[in-house]
């Protein structure tokens, strides 16, 4: 009895130290994916339960945040599949590239709220790469693994995602009559 308890407590201790502090990060990505607090909480809970069950497979020296977010993406994929939302996305990169024919400059005086709304308007396949790399600071390689995409695709989506974001922000500034700075 003593041996089992100690083993479990040791594993829990490691999980508590490594994984639990990352709960706010996992929730943030879940919230971004689901855009709904209740669903984000479900996703976060399921992610941590699965992580706990397979924590013995986690190597302590690797990136725990990337490991948790990978589980989160898998859990979210299952949820969307159940809802019939998961579908193969048409590759519209070329189409979108054509719509971004100029390089807009980024206006000043934008609020955080406007920036958030602008990134929400960027198509999800591009915005999620921007979120993973620019907000969550994953490397291209980590983002590629999370999204199960070739690294080249991640790079091109990031490039276009950022450009679309700038375009959206220029549009917001235009609505308020804010002049662009060049």
């Amino acid at each position, binding site marked *: 009895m003593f041996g089992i308890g100690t083993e479990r407590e040791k594993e*829990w201790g490691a999980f508590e130290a490594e994984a639990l502090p990352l709960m*706010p990060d996992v929730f*943030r990505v879940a919230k971004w994916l689901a855009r709904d607090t209740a669903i984000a909480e479900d996703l976060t809970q399921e992610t941590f*339960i699965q992580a*706990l069950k397979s924590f013995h497979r986690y190597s302590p020296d690797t990136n725990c945040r990337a490991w948790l977010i990978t589980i989160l993406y898998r859990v979210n994929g299952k949820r969307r599949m159940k809802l019939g939302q998961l579908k193969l996305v048409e590759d519209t990169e070329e189409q979108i590239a054509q719509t971004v024919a100029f390089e807009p400059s*980024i206006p000043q005086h934008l609020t955080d709220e406007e920036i958030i709304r602008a990134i929400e308007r960027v198509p999800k396949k591009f915005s999620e790469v921007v979120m993973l790399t620019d907000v969550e600071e994953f*490397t*291209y390689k980590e983002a590629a693994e999370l999204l199960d995409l070739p690294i080249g695709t991640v790079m091109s989506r990031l490039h276009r995602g950022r450009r679309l*974001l700038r375009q959206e922000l220029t549009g917001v500034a235009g609505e308020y009559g804010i002049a662009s700075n060049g």
Partner: protein
Amino acid sequence: MDCQEFRRLIESYLGDELLVETNHYVLRHLENCRDCREQLATRRELRGRLRNAVITMPEMQIGDIFASRLQINLRQIALQPNIWDRLTAGGFAGMRVALVGFACLLVVVIGGFFMLRSSNDQIAANTDTRIDQRQTLIEANKARLADAVKVAWNELSGQAVGDHKNCAVKFNLSERPISLDEAAKKFGRINKDIDKTVFEATKTAFSDKPASRIELLEAHSCIFGGRRFTHIVMRRQGKVISVLVTDTDLPAEANAPLTDHTDGVLNAAGFSIGRHAFFIVSDMDAADNTAVARAIFPAMRRHIDAAGA
């Protein structure tokens, strides 16, 4: 490196994803190109602002209560030993306990099988007792439900009496009644010409008393106590008689008189027809009141059936 090449690499440079050598070329170009430096600064600022906006936005923050609850649940899951852990705890000694336990279980299962065969009669008797007990419980629940329904019907009758008092007698409603034609459009065809049905049926009900003349005073749709009633007001020998129809989903025995309600002065007799209840409320004596309700019931049922309500 020229500006065009720099712009091709700017995203990777921002992401710190360039090779060391390429990074040197970029830095060298930036030293000499003000435009590209500004471009880079602007993009870096946007990146920082996006990160800051998302990370600090209140709606992206995990709730403290949820986080604490999840942590407690995870701890329970992590530290709760499963059955096998309990049995095998303590190494070899534990394993021996587990094996002895398994052997005992086997004996119990085999013994149980033979006992089962020999005690079929006893089991049947016990089953009968359980069925009887269950039946008693079902009956008790039915009685409780019937009581609850009775109370609800009495409350509904009380509301009908209230409408009669406040609308037909005192003209004291908080909301102005609407015509039956308007009610027919808004609340269902049952309202259409129901006044004619009620009036003719009531006249027929009193036809054996030729001296009694019945007047139709008013017909409309009104609200009392939050409930909408179709309300037909008549008068006979100085007594005001209301026929009130309202929607209800209360369970009722089809076509049965549901209630005879009195408050000492006014009497109400009610019937259920489909998803409707209708009441006669008046200060006639209770027996007469119920008799009128019974007499007009068939016409009311035909009317409601024809309206498809």
